[in-house]
């Protein structure tokens, strides 16, 4: 009988790098639970970046602001139980300039038709459709991994989150 080892905010064991002939910073090695433990609720910390594309970690705690992006994003819940509310925006272009990428904050409640809700647990992945508004809510702290494009609120703090020496 095998036991699958996942991790959580309270229980993770970070791996590491044994350098033979390289700079450990080239691997940008971090742990998402360690990042979330050091984050404020719902700030978007970039843990992986490939040119304009990013993977961002959110510490899910309480209710998030509403956000929207002009392209699909995806939320992979990696801890906790998260409710995602979706609204079809009446005027999505009012939140973006042409050619924008990444998500933007919406002030207050979004104007549009409710699309539905998703209740997601660890390992569940949800579509955050382009031109919709989305909001996360959780009763207990959790972790969400977002597949997106770097935006104005994406936070890069590589030196704080990555292994820099071995």
């Amino acid at each position: 009988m095998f036991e699958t080892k996942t991790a959580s905010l309270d229980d993770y064991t970070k791996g590491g790098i044994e350098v033979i002939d390289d700079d450990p910073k080239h691997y940008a090695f971090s742990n998402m639970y360690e990042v979330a433990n050091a984050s404020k609720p719902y700030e978007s910390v970039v843990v992986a970046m490939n040119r304009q594309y990013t993977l961002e970690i959110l510490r899910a705690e309480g209710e998030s602001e509403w956000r929207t992006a002009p392209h699909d994003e995806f939320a992979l819940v990696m801890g906790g139980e998260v409710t995602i509310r979706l609204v079809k925006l009446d005027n999505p272009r009012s939140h973006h300039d042409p050619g924008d990428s990444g998500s933007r904050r919406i002030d207050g409640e979004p104007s549009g038709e409710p699309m539905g809700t998703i209740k997601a647990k660890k390992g569940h992945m949800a579509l955050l459709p382009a031109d919709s508004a989305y909001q996360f809510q959780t009763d207990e702290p959790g972790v969400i991994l977002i597949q997106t494009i770097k935006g104005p609120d994406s936070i890069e703090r590589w030196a704080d989150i990555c292994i820099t020496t071995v």
Partner: protein
Amino acid sequence: MTTLEETPTVLATEQNEQGYREFSLGELHFRRDEYFVYITWPTGSHVMSADAFLRALQRDVAWEFFYGIVNFDGVIGTVNHYGTVDLFAGRYNDSYRKAELDHVENFPTPQIKATFEEMLDDWTNETFDPFAAPRETGSAFGVKNGENRKAITRHRVKAARMVSCTGDEQIRSDETGHPVNEHFVDISQDEPEIIAEPGFEDEVKAFSLFAYLSRSDVTWNPSVVSVCKDSLFCPTTEEYILPIIHGNDRVEWFVQLSDEIHWDVADRETGALRAKVVMRAGDVAAMPANIRHQGYARKRSMLLVWENADPDIPELIATGQTPTYPADF
């Protein structure tokens, strides 16, 4: 006007004494017997165990030569130029390079693909599944013994938007022929609770990635589950050894979703060891664009491979417009 695509010519012999056909691509020749595969080229020769060769060949065929270099081992492999493919012997081996005994030939992708597919088909016996972990498959060895076409031509998942979306790749179940793997019987099979308002059923979508991966019937086979322009989530389940040594032509990212994988990281050009990386659940790490890597997993684990499929990246890196590592800090 209708045009017919030219069918690539596969150069192969009749069956040899062990029942296997022999194949040629340019000046490279491939032969197998009960235990081994023999590769020859004008300046050298090489031998691989048949099971290791077939596992590597299976990935190269299924991935359509993937991103960058697929090293079958330290001598043989392919480089994807996205339209053509280099087949090499010793090109990324320091000793062969210094001795000037390495050999490279370039082929149109359809030609090498057709040859590799026929080789894989002819050399895979009915007892062997090259996608499976060793505990899940019978032997690759012996004289020619039937075929396992069902295993080697599995559907490759390539979601257009996200698995479970309308008209896209669908979730796995017992009914689709994907039972939960023995190593993942403790993974919850609960799906997200979705309440879609009328008219938004195609937009309010979610699925359990963990349950989906727990039902994967292949190892070391990244498959697309979600797409944000060129950003591709390619999760995979890993057990035993990555059958190829992947040489990157762009930065590639790993997110360890469960369990543990050990990676050997070496110089892309020479194979000189540069680092060893151990990844556990929740870890995130980049594989730089100038390395090759091979992974080891005792227990079947869930690994999220994240790729940027932008076709311009290899040129941007080659010309120094994009660094080989992900971030400066």
